[in-house]
């Protein structure tokens, strides 16, 4: 790629320019059906990237391939400079995965669980520091099976970042959380970003992606249909404005990218310059998202 062939920038090195994740033409099939159907993706170092899409869109499969726990059928994948399919222990120590279980049973306390896993890493974060980071200091001596759902997720995040990963994977981190726990969780992720950890998260919550991510990739039916900062998602779709008014007794609605011209005509048509029930609305992020995932065959920008 051209990025790696450029002359070294004044600050930083070629290694810094290299994205944390680079995916080209990724395909994964189950029983002949492509659940991941040609995804191209780049996650830059230091950014929080959200893969946003409905359930069954291929988010988890994609992430599991990047984590090196699932094989791919086609495509090139580089994660922190290595192919996940052949990544060794040193590579795995540089990535963090937030799992759905601690992997050490539920009979341990929070502190015991964290202490145990310090033995797996090259440079583990001290347990006391980790407990404070995720807000579990008070619950340190509580058994894992006595934790609330939100506390469990925070313990799993603690385990994910214990090895000081350069890249952290969060797969559907807030599914099933209540709104308060979600907000706390978001604060936790923001803290990770501040410390420079690259984060790749999957979510089917639009507000989560919009709140946390520097860039969002919308994935549907195994394809990435849109990539960009949350505010820019669905560029063309967002420029389309819906103008509604009442004409006679019938409600009228026109979708246009030139609302000014339409309004001028409407006003000119009425002798008093009044248009009953006139409203002009731009599509919200949610409207854009719903339209994006509803038309998977739409060409990527």
């Amino acid at each position, binding site marked *: 790629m051209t990025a790696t062939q450029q002359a*070294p920038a004044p*600050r*930083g*090195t*070629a*290694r*810094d320019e290299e994205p944390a994740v680079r995916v080209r033409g990724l395909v994964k099939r189950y029983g002949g059906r492509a659940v991941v159907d040609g995804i191209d993706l780049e996650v830059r*170092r*230091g950014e929080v990237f959200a893969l946003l899409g409905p359930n069954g869109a291929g988010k988890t499969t994609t992430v599991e391939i990047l*984590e090196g*726990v*699932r*094989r791919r059928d086609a495509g090139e994948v580089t994660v922190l400079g290595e192919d996940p399919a052949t990544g*060794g*222990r*040193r*590579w*795995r*120590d*540089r990535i963090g*995965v937030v*799992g*759905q*279980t*601690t*992997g*050490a*049973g539920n*009979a*341990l306390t929070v502190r*015991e669980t964290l202490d*145990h*896993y310090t*033995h*797996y*890493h*090259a*440079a583990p974060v001290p347990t006391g520091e980790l407990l404070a980071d995720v807000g579990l200091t008070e619950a340190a001596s509580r058994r894992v099976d006595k934790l609330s759902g939100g506390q469990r997720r925070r313990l799993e995040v603690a385990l994910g970042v214990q*090895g*000081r*990963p*350069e890249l952290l994977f969060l797969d559907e981190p807030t599914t099933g959380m209540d709104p308060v726990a979600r907000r706390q969780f978001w604060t936790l992720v923001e803290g990770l970003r501040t*410390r*420079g*950890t*690259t984060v790749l998260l999957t979510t089917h919550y639009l507000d989560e992606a919009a709140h946390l991510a520097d860039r969002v990739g919308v994935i549907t039916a195994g394809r990435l249909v849109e990539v960009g900062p949350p505010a820019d998602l669905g560029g063309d779709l967002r420029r389309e404005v819906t103008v509604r008014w009442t004409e006679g007794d019938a409600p009228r609605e026109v979708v246009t990218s030139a609302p000014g011209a339409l309004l001028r005509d409407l006003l000119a048509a009425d002798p008093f310059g009044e248009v009953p029930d006139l409203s002009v609305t731009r599509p919200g992020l949610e409207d854009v998202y719903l339209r994006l995932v509803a038309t998977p065959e739409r060409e990527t920008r």
Partner: protein
Amino acid sequence: MTATTAPRTTTAPGTTARPALPSAAAIGRSRIGLELRLFARDSGQVVFSFAYPVIMLVIFGSVFGGEEVLPGVDFRQYFLAGIAATGVMLTSFQAVGTAITEERERGDLARLQTLGTPPLAYGIGKAGQVLVTTVAQLAVLLGVAALAYDVPLPTEPGRWLTFAWVVVLGILAGTVMGIAVTSFIGSARAAGTGIPAFAVVLQFLSGVFFIDSDLPAWMDQIAAVFPLKWMVQGMRSVFLPDSAAAMEAAGTWEHGRTALVLVAWVIIGAVVCARTFRWRRGE
């Protein structure tokens, strides 16, 4: 050139010159501690592992009382050998096989995979836990046999040496086979019924519940393929007088062949583990 020598300025902590990773042996050591702690906190497993052989001994002792199998050898003494061997199989093969399928189903193993846990470290943890729990279980069993039933325990060091190698080889064979069998069993449910059922059938075939010489020849031949029969035979050589060797099919204790069969199973089991072990199902 500058690209490779210039320091990296990534802000993620710990990215510059990570220290060496802990060895598989070091992770294995901490896994032994973890496994033992989890075992101790699972009261059902503790009770089953420690009480089952003792209950078997109590039942055999009550049913057959002080009847003699051989001159000077009563049923309790005779069956102590079979019960001790069974105990080793239960705490190794059965406990490991059922535990791993459960851990895999819960996603615990998938978690360990993402941490880059060496499979060897995982195996060391299991084997270490099995060793400690088996030794404790045998101590309880032999204690009850000696104190409550006056079963004479051997005094010669040579017999305890035999006891030691039979137990250690039995543990290793049982552990690697317990790990290996999980590659071929789908769900934890299937393992929870299939493994104990197999273990019970093997106990019947291997002469745990009967006087070995009463068994039909075909049963003996099937049993001879598996380690349990040899462990029982090895245990008989520990707990019965040498005169009892005449009752064995071969007329001797066959220590050499016992060691050979057990070592062969350790090797076969280890090879199957190394080739088929998977952290998750279906990948």
